């Protein structure tokens, strides 16, 4: 029976539980600002020759988060994600201006080795692109190139395990990677990135060529992998961003010079629940609700 004397204790107990619950929830998802920053991008501009592709983007990517970039075609989201591991260096006419700091260091600094960058910041592409080699050799490729050959078998097994592929391929490691299904090939490509122990995984539309079941497996995988890695994903599929991302950035296209120039801009960057329940910018609202784009 609750008497007036113990009612207060009861209230304290209830409030205590509430606070615990709150703390637990905060433990799961502390405010982003309190997290370590992996990438700190300031005033980034990318041009292809004289054509501006991306204008004045500033963003912080947080550790152990999945960060999604969404937006209509041509908004520069793929151009942007390629700045995180200097993939744009491979395009001769691409010019990257502004600052991209990775754990505080200038990613485009003169002493930075792009190969080392791509080891620590792996990338998975839209279409699975395994090498025409065995499953084992695909995963062992990176470690061999980088001289990480001690305990190679364990390294390959660990990477395949992390990519949730080990059980499906452990008895056929010598088979060609091309004999795998599309979804398995994509997980193999993820394993190939993981084998060199990266810090960040960049994913450019990693599930857009996959069926819904394979897509779900990739999404589940991202959820598991973010415990140990920081993941940045470009996706056309807004619901995918809503399902998997902690933070979402919405990019759009700014059209100028009578339609001749189409430049990507960052419209809004916030926690995913905020972007999908009460976005601050009308343009984001119009895009996520399907009224534009």
């Amino acid at each position, binding site marked *: 029976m609750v008497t007036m004397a113990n009612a207060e204790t009861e209230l304290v107990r209830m409030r205590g539980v509430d606070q615990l619950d709150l703390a637990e929830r905060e433990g799961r998802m502390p405010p982003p600002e309190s997290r370590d920053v992996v990438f700190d991008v300031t005033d980034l501009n990318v041009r292809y020759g004289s054509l501006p592709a991306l204008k004045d983007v500033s963003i912080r990517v947080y550790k152990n988060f999945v960060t999604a970039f969404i937006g209509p075609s041509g908004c520069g989201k793929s151009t942007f994600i390629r700045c995180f591991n200097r993939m744009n260096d491979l395009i001769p006419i691409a010019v990257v201006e502004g600052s991209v700091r990775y754990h505080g260091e200038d990613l485009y600094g003169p002493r930075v080795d792009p190969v080392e960058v791509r080891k620590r910041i792996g990338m998975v592409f839209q279409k699975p692109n395994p090498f025409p080699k065995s499953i084992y050799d695909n995963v062992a490729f990176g470690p061999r190139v980088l001289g990480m050959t001690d305990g190679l078998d364990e390294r390959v097994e660990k990477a395949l395990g992390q990519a949730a592929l080990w059980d499906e391929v452990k008895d056929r490691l010598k088979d060609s990677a091309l004999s795998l299904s599309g979804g398995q090939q994509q997980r193999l490509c993820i394993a190939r990135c993981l084998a060199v122990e990266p810090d960040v995984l960049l994913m450019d539309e990693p599930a857009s060529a996959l069926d819904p079941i394979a897509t779900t497996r990739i999404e589940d995988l991202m959820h598991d992998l973010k415990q140990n890695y920081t993941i940045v994903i470009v996706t056309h599929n*807004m*619901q995918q961003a*809503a399902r998997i991302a902690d933070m979402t950035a919405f990019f759009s296209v700014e059209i100028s010079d009578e339609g001749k120039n189409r430049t990507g801009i960052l419209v809004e960057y916030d926690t995913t629940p905020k972007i*999908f*329940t*009460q*976005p601050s910018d009308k343009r*984001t*609202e119009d895009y*996520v*609700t*399907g*009224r534009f784009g």
Partner: protein
Amino acid sequence: MRVTLQEALDQLEAAIHEEGELVLRALRGALGALEHQDVELADEVIAFDDEVDDTYLAIEEEIQSLLARQTPVAVDLRTVLAILHVNLHLERMADYCVTVAKLTKLVEGAPADQTLMEAFDEMGSRAEEMIRVALDSFAERNVERAESLVELDELIDRANRRAVEQVIAISGDEERREWGLRMIIVSRCLERIGDHAVDIGEQTAFLVTGEFREFTDASH
């Protein structure tokens, strides 16, 4: 533009307003039955609740289907969530009308107190006005008007307190005691309808601002 989604949202909103009209009819019926001690009308009000329940269920099912198929986000999601709540508040209001009708039947033939009957007339009009303001401000997405429900609710709350005092005043009279006790519940029902109207107002504010906040703090 997602035409299918927009059409579904428009239909839901229209259904909510139809449900609101049904609740207003139930309220007027319940008040009429009470005023004229009309048992037949009270029975009609009780039976009429099935229509409100059917509308409530249809809206509920449509929301389930819409959430599953259209996965609305942002303002569309807030609209669906707000309608989900408004639907429940309207259904509860209709239930209070049924309670008033049932109590009317229970006190058939008992001597009524004129002061209290006049108070119910006033409370009924205020409840009706509040339902209208709640539904209109929701339709207009008018937060300011939705917030005006707090003042209207204060008036109905005061009338409720006066009604209770009046019942206490007449409770010395044995013949009117049972009638009085039952009328306290009638008064409470009308007062609760006002509370639900304020809750609908809060949904309007949520829909517009994206933040849910109670207009008044229950501890005050």
